[in-house]
C-alpha cells in the first residue's frame, strides 16, 4: 500500500465547473492524466466504458436530480467491474454513504473522502494512490464521528485498539500506523490481531479482513 510514483489515468465526475477545472489542474500537476471529465452520472458511465481508467473520482450529488446520483453510479460501476478503484468526494460526513460504497464489491479499492480534503493537496493525492492500489480509505472526519459512539461490538475494544482501528479505516498501512502512534510495527500487528479476534473475524486473507474490520466499524 505504499505510494507509487506511477501516473494514473483518471475519469473525473464533478458538476461544478470551477472545481472540475481545479481538480484537472491539480491532478495534472502531479503527473496524473484526467482522460475524461464529465458533469453527470450518465457521462461518468459512458466515460468509464470508453476509457477504462485506473481510477474514478466522483462527486456524490450530481445532475439531474442532485441527490446521490454520483454515488449510485459508482456503486453500479463497481458491480459491473469488480475491483475498479473509485474515490468518492462527498460534502457530507455520513457513514451511510461510505457504507454503501464499501458494500459494493469486496470493499477494496474504494475511498470516501470529504471534499474539504482536496484542499490538503498531499493528503488527497496520497489517498488517491492508495485507493488506486486497492486500499480502503474513509475520511478521518467520518471516522472521528464514529469514534464518538461506544457501542457493541466495538465496546470490547480498548481505547488503543480503537485508535488503531480508526487508522486502519483511514487506509493506513501498519508501518504508517506505527509511525503515527509512536510504537513498533510489531505492536501494531498485535493490536490488529486482537481487534480481528474481538470482532470475530477469523484468519483469512489479511487485507480482506482489514476491510471487514472497517466495515464492522462503519456499521457499528
Amino acid at each position, binding site marked *: 500500500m505504499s505510494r507509487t510514483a506511477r501516473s494514473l489515468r483518471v475519469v473525473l465526475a464533478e458538476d*461544478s465547473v*470551477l*472545481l472540475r477545472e*481545479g*481538480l484537472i*489542474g*491539480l491532478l495534472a*500537476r502531479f503527473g496524473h492524466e484526467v482522460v475524461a471529465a464529465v458533469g453527470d452520472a450518465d457521462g461518468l458511465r459512458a466515460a468509464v466504458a470508453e476509457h477504462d481508467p485506473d481510477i474514478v473520482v466522483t462527486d456524490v*450529488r450530481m445532475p439531474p436530480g*442532485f*441527490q*446521490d446520483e454520483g454515488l449510485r453510479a459508482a456503486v453500479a460501476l463497481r458491480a459491473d467491474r469488480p475491483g475498479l478503484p473509485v474515490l468518492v468526494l462527498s*460534502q*457530507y*460526513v*455520513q*457513514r*451511510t*454513504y461510505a*457504507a*454503501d460504497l464499501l*458494500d459494493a464489491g469486496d470493499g477494496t479499492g474504494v475511498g470516501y473522502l*470529504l*471534499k*474539504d480534503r*482536496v*484542499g*490538503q*493537496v*498531499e493528503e488527497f493525492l496520497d489517498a488517491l494512490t492508495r485507493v488506486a492500489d486497492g486500499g480502503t480509505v474513509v475520511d478521518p472526519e467520518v471516522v472521528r*464521528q*464514529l469514534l*464518538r*459512539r*461506544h*457501542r*457493541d461490538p466495538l465496546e470490547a475494544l480498548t481505547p488503543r485498539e480503537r485508535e488503531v482501528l480508526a487508522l486502519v479505516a483511514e487506509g493506513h498501512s501498519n508501518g504508517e500506523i506505527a509511525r503515527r502512534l509512536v510504537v513498533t510495527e510489531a505492536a501494531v500487528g498485535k493490536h490488529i490481531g486482537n481487534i480481528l479476534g474481538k470482532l470475530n473475524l477469523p484468519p483469512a486473507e489479511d487485507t480482506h479482513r482489514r476491510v471487514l474490520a472497517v466495515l464492522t466499524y462503519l*456499521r*457499528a
Partner: protein
Amino acid sequence: MEPRTPWQALTRGRYVRTGWPWRAVGYLGSGVVTGAIALAVLLLFGVLAVVLVGIPLLLLTALALGGVERRRLRLVDLDPAADPHRVPDAPGLAAWLRVRVREQVTWRELAYAVLHATVLWPLDLLVLAVALGLPAALLSAPLRLALDGQETKVVKAYLVTSYPQAFAAALLGAALLVVLLYPLGAFAGARAALSRALLAPREAELRDRIGEVTASRARLVAAFEAERRRIERDLHDGAQQRLVALTMTLGLARLDAPPGPLADQLAKAHEEAGQVLTELRELIHGIHPQVLADYGLAAALTDAADRSAVPVDTTDIDLPRLPAAVESAGYFAVCEALANIGRHSGATRARISARHAASLTIEVEDDGRGGATASISGSAAGSAGTGLTGLADRLAVLDGTLTIISPAGGPTLLRVEIPCPALPDRSASSSQRTASSSAKG
C-alpha cells in the same frame, strides 16, 4: 344577558325604551332601499339574460347583494354572519368564478336577491307604512289643523275640526305607535332570521372551512420545507463548491511558496478557509441533511445519533420511506430531543426506536434527571421549552402528537406519533437496504 336580536328584546320588559325598535326601523328602511335597487338591477340584467351575458351579471349582483345584506344584518342581529364563500385556490377572475359558481351559497344568494327584490322589500315598506305611517298621521293632526285653520282629515276618514279632537287623535297616535312597535320588531326579527338562513354559512360550510384552515397550515409548512431545501441547495452548489475550490487553490499555492512569511500567511489563510468550510458544512447539514432525502428517516436518525454528544443506541429502527413532510418532522423532532438531552438532561445514554404501522412512532429515551414536562410550558429552561412547543406545533399540522413522560429524577421518554402511509416505490427498497445495514450493528 343583553338581547342579541329583536325577538329576544321583545321578551324583555323595557323593549320600547331601548334602541331596538329604532334598529328594527333602520333595518326595514334600509331594506326598502336595497330591495328597490336590487329590483331595478335584476330587471335590467334579467332582460340581458335573454342574450346570456346577463346570467353572470345576475350572479354578480346576487353576490354583491349578499355581502351588503350580511352587513345590514348587523343592525338587528348582533352575532355577525360570516362570509360563507371560500377563498379561491388560484388567483384570477376565472378561478374565482369557477369557485363561486360551484358554491351552494351563491345560488342561495341569488334566491335571496330575487325574493328580496320582489317580495321582501315591498313587505318592509308595508310594515313601515302601517307601523309608523298610521301613528304619524294621528300625531300630526294638531299641526295640520293649525296649518289649515278650519279642519283636517285624519287617516283620510275622520274629520277633525277642533283642537281637543286633534290632540286626542295625537294621543291615540302616540299610544298606537308604542303598540305597533312590537309587531314591527317581530317582523324585523323574522326578516333577519330569513336573511341569516339564506346568507350565513351553514354548518357543513363551516366544517369545510376548518378543513381549509388545516390545509392552508399544511401548505405553509410545505412552503417552509421547500424554502429550507432551496437554501440548502443554494449553499451547497454555490458557496460550498467555491470554498472547496478556494482551499484547493490555497493548498496548491502553499506547495509553491518558498518558506518565509508568505508561506506562513498562506498557511493561515488555508487553515481559516478550511475552518469556514467545516462550519458551512455543519450549517448546511442543520438546514436540511441530504441523507434524509437520499436514504430516508432511518438513515437520518442514525446519522443524528452519530452526531449526538450523548451516546445513542439505534438498533431498534425499522422504517420504510415515508412522505417527505413526515420524515422531516420526525427527524427534526429527534434532533431537538437529542439536543435537549445533551444540554439539560445530564443523561449518559439515550436510545432511539422508530417503527411504522399505520403511523410513524418514534421514541427517544434517556437515563437523565427528568423533569422535561415542566419546561414544555416555557417556564423552566427557556430554550428547551420553546423548542418542545415548536415541535408540538409542527407535529400538530401533520395531525401528529408529542408525548413527554418525564418524572422528576428521570428517566425521560419522548414519543412522537404521526399517522401516515408508507411510500411504495424504488426508494422503499433502498431504505430497506439502509435499515437492514443499520440494524446489523
